[in-house]
């Protein structure tokens, strides 16, 4: 039955995974489903098993163990009943005692109540009587007659005796009751003693009874078990014998078959042996033949072995020799190695020494270098100092010389003036030269700062606004703009920049600038923008403008190239731009128009960025030289010019005039001196004349008179006139 059940279970457990989704499936849902099914199947199996077992047990208990189990149950029930009855029997006494006690208490209570009542009644009656008696005592006082009094007293005595008697009677009653109670108590004691003995008897009886019945039941149970065991034994024995019979018969069968098989095997063995012996013989012969052949081969091998041995010995000798040689060479090499090691060590020592020396040299040289650098610095310092002093001296010398020259010049001019006015009688104007006002050494006039330039530009634009037709020449005279840049373009570009680069200006400043005029605010804005961009000079401004123009040009070309890529292009636009780029200088108006058009405000920032980067690159390179060379770069060429110009304050024609004048004056002087001489001569001559007149008269017609420039006749005539 069990095996069947197990089979069923196995079948149950085996069946589901075949039909249902498998646990090893790829789909997780399917796997979950499979596991659930498996759990359910297991639970089902367990439940069935339990059910089956319980059924089994029930059947077993009913069939197999029925006898003993029944016996046990029966005896247990009877015993418990007996126990219950016995305890009841024993406790009955206690209960009866309790009952009696309660009854007694009730009776006692009742009796007590009656007694109390009785006593109270008695008290009442006796009290009444007592009152009567006491009342009569009052009466007795009223009695005067002794007989009456005696009678009354007798009566009183009688009454009192009665009262006392009653009391005594009561007391005796109570005492009798007490005695009765005592008797009752003794009886009760006896009764209780009896009860206790009864109780003890019953208990003993109960115990004996119980022991007996327990023993009996035990015997019964044992018998039942024994019987069951006997039955079981008999049945098992029968079973055993049956099984044994079956087993024996089977054993016999096995034995017979075994015997048969043994005989078969023996036959086979014999056959096998015969065959084996034949085979053995043939193999033996073959193997002997083989042995002979192998022995021959062995002999041959031995011979070759001998030969080889000799050869090897020879080789061994040779190798030994070689080995010796090798050892010699080795020793030589070792020695060489030692020597070389020594050399190497020496070289290393030398190297170390050298390094040390060089190191020391290096230290001394660095010290020297430092010293020299210091000296150089001192020298530079002194040089700078001397340069300054030189400058000063130069300036002083210059000024002295200049003053001297100026004095000379003034002198010359005065002379010229005097000459002009007095000698020549010409009007004289003081010549005005640029060097006239110059004081000190000539230096390049400073570049205008960027703001000044802008200021000027803006002023110019204002003027332009005022008088639109103002001449360009005037402006140009004031502003030294580069040729290729017009003021307008510059202004426009600056204005655009001013508008676009507001971010470079501080916010506070912007709020301050708000109320100002457009130009002023623009100026201040540009000032801060230039400060931010690092633009200082006029030149920087121009380079900026130029950069903008270039940038625009580059953009234009890039645009152009982009447009060129497209087949359908605006020919006119390209043409105009090309023309524009080809001739930048000619059409300035066009250009500035283009400026405003082509430099889009959005591009300004990019351009600015590019400009700042390029500026930085430019500035980084030449900065360090500037400081030293500034003074030396002073232009000497103009000095000589200046001085030369000083020399030629009096122009050459005038000098020539002066030369001529000198000549003339010389001549005049000569003439004058001649005249003076002549005058003296004249006087002398007059004297002579007078003398001569006398002589004239003698010599009136002398030839000397004719050879003179002024004919003596004229002189004669002039003074005469």
């Amino acid at each position, binding site marked *: 039955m069990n095996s069947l059940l197990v089979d069923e279970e196995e079948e149950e457990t085996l069946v589901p995974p075949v039909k249902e989704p498998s646990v090893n499936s790829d789909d997780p849902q399917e796997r979950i489903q499979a596991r659930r099914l498996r759990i359910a199947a297991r639970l089902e199996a367990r439940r069935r098993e339990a059910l089956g077992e*319980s059924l089994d*047990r*029930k059947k077993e*208990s009913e069939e197999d163990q029925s006898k003993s189990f029944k016996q046990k*149950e*029966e005896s247990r*029930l009877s015993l*418990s009943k007996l126990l219950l009855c016995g305890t*009841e029997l024993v*406790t*009955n006494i206690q*209960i*009866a005692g*309790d*009952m009696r*006690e*309660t009854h007694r*208490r009730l009776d006692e209570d009742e009796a007590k109540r009656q007694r109390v009542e009785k006593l109270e009644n008695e008290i009442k009656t006796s009290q009444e009587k007592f009152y009567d008696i006491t009342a009569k005592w009052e009466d007795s006082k009223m009695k005067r007659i002794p007989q009456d009094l005696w009678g009354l007293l007798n009566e009183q005595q009688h009454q009192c005796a009665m009262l006392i008697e009653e009391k005594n009677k009561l007391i005796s009653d109570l005492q009798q009751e007490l005695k009765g109670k005592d008797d009752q108590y003794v009886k009760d004691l006896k009764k209780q003693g009896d009860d206790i003995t009864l109780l003890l008897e019953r208990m003993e009886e109960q115990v004996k009874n119980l022991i007996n019945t327990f023993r009996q039941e035990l015997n019964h149970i044992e018998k039942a078990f024994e019987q069951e065991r006997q039955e079981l034994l008999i049945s098992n024995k029968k079973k055993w014998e049956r099984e044994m019979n079956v087993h024996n018969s089977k054993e016999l069968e096995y034995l017979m078959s075994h015997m048969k098989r043994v005989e078969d095997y023996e036959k086979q063995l014999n056959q096998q042996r015969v065959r084996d012996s034949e085979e053995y013989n043939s193999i033996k012969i073959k193997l002997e033949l083989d042995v002979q052949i192998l022995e021959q081969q062995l002999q041959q091998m031995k011979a070759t072995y001998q030969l080889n041995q000799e050869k090897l010995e020879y080789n061994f000798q040779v190798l030994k020799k070689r080995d010796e040689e090798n050892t010699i060479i080795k020793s030589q090499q070792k020695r060489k190695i030692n020597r070389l090691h020594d050399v190497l060590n020496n070289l290393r020592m030398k190297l170390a020494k050298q390094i040390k020396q060089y190191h020391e040299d290096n230290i001394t040289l660095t010290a020297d270098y430092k010293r020299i650098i210091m000296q150089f610095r001192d020298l530079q310092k002194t040089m700078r100092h001397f340069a300054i002093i030189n400058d000063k001296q130069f300036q002083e010398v210059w000024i002295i010389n200049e003053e001297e020259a100026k004095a000379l010049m003034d002198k010359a001019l005065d002379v010229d003036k005097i000459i002009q006015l007095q000698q020549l009688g010409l009007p004289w104007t003081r010549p005005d030269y640029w060097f006239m006002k110059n004081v000190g050494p000539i230096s390049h006039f400073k570049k205008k700062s960027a703001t000044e330039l802008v200021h000027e530009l803006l002023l110019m634009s204002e003027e332009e606004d005022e008088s639109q037709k103002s001449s360009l020449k005037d402006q140009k005279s004031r502003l030294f703009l580069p040729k290729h840049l017009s003021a307008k373009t510059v202004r426009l570009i600056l204005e655009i920049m001013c508008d676009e680069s507001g971010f470079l200006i501080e916010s506070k400043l912007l709020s301050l600038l708000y109320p100002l005029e457009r130009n002023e605010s623009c100026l201040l804005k540009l000032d801060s923008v230039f400060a931010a961009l690092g633009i200082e000079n006029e030149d920087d401004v121009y380079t900026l403008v130029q950069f903008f123009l270039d940038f625009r040009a580059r953009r234009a070309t890039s645009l152009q190239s982009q447009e060129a890529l497209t087949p359908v292009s605006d020919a006119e636009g390209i043409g105009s731009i090309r023309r524009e780029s080809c001739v930048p200088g000619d059409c300035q108006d066009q250009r500035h128009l283009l400026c405003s058009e082509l430099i889009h405000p959005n591009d300004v920032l990019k351009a600015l960025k590019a400009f700042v980067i390029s500026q930085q690159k430019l500035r980084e390179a030449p900065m360090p030289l500037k400081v030293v060379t500034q003074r030396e770069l002073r232009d000497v060429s103009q000095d000589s010019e200046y001085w030369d110009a000083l020399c030629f304050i009096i122009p050459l024609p005038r000098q020539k005039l002066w030369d001529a004048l000198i000549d003339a004056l010389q001549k005049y002087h000569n003439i004058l001196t001649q005249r003076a001489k002549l005058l003296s001569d004249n006087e002398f001559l007059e004297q002579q004349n007078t003398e001569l007149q006398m002589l004239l008269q003698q010599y009136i017609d002398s030839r000397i008179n004719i050879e003179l420039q002024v004919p003596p006749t004229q002189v004669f005539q002039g003074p005469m006139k």
Partner: protein
Amino acid sequence: MAIPPPSKISVSNPASNTRRMRRIIAEDPEWSLTIVPRLSELCLQHIVSNFEKNPVLTQLNPIQQRRVLDRLSTDLPLKVVANLVTDESYWRRRCNQRWAVGHVEKYGNSWKRMFFERHLQDLLKYFIPGTTDPRVILELVPLCQDYVVRLSVDQFLPPVKLEQQIQEMEQSDSASETEVEEFSMDHYQLGQLVAGLRRLEELDLVFGVKDCGMNFEWNLFLFTTRDCLSLASTIKACHTLKVFKLTRSKVDDEKARVLIRSLMDHPALLELDLSHNNIGDRGVRAAAKLINHSHLQILKLANNKIRALGAQALAHALSYNTTLLSLNLRLNCIEDEGGQALAHALQSNSTLTNLHLGGNELSEPTATVFSQVLSVNTALTCINLSCNHIGLDGGKQLLEGMSDNKTLMEFDLRMSEIGQESEYLISVALNANREAARLRTLQPTCCHITVNHINNAAD
């Protein structure tokens, strides 16, 4: 250890006696053929003989200890033996020698405990205040403090002076009670003794005299106020006490209140037995207060003077109590009022298992309430309503209540006039309940099988 002189050896040597040489004495377990006893044997003998002066035990090995203990005298003073010897067989010998009957099972299977408890009990039993030296008992305290668990004394003797007083009283008939009061009738004060006993768990006292015979006097059974006060302080100080019994001692309301007040919030007390006293309603009210102020599990107030009021107080306390398991009010007079109150309390109580209301003048109204209790309550297993006047109708109502109850196992209704029929039916129902309970305890799993058997058997 001095070697005994050879002459002694010859004396103790069994071989020296020619008569003994000849035969083997079967009773002597130490008999041996060796003519000269071993030195170790001799030493052990010496130890045994001089144990009182020089107790050597712990230094010996177990086999030697065994030998010494087997031969130790039972008359050795307790001072020597009490804390040294723990061997049960020695104490068993001592007990058996002293008392003919003794159930060691009642003493936790410890002969030593039995010896000391009974020894102390005897001393207390025959202690006469004023004449007996109290040191006799106090000296014993350090010896027995570890072994005495229960102290049950069923008699306390009054002072000796009393006898003279009694004689005087006999001479002069009209001896006033005030005179009696003047002489201290106080019994032995347990205070010091109990304070010394560390393991004490149970106190069972009866203030009375046994075997007084014809010398009976009420004064012999006087539980005085001082006794009461000292006992109260004693039990209050004893924190290990679990069971306190004071029976047959004429404890009245006042004394009961004093005692119970001292037991309030006691940390260990589990059982209180004040049976066979004179306690009335006031004392019971105190007890009712106690059950909710301690861990009390068993309360016995049998054979007192409890009336309906006291029962009502108890019922009120019981209605919200969760510790009390057993209540015994046998032989009181709580009547229907008290019975009804208790029954109502049991409807809400779910811890009480044992209730004894025998001999309480209960009648039908109580039975009706109890029938309701039976159908509601599942904690009760044992009720005793014997010796009451429940009557036939009350019996029928109780039977109805029983039909719904599956937990009650004992229901004593003897002598309560309920009629044989209902008594039999109730007993059948109780039987079924008992069987069910037995099966529950035996095999909780397969009870349904055997129930059939029982039914079959019952049929």
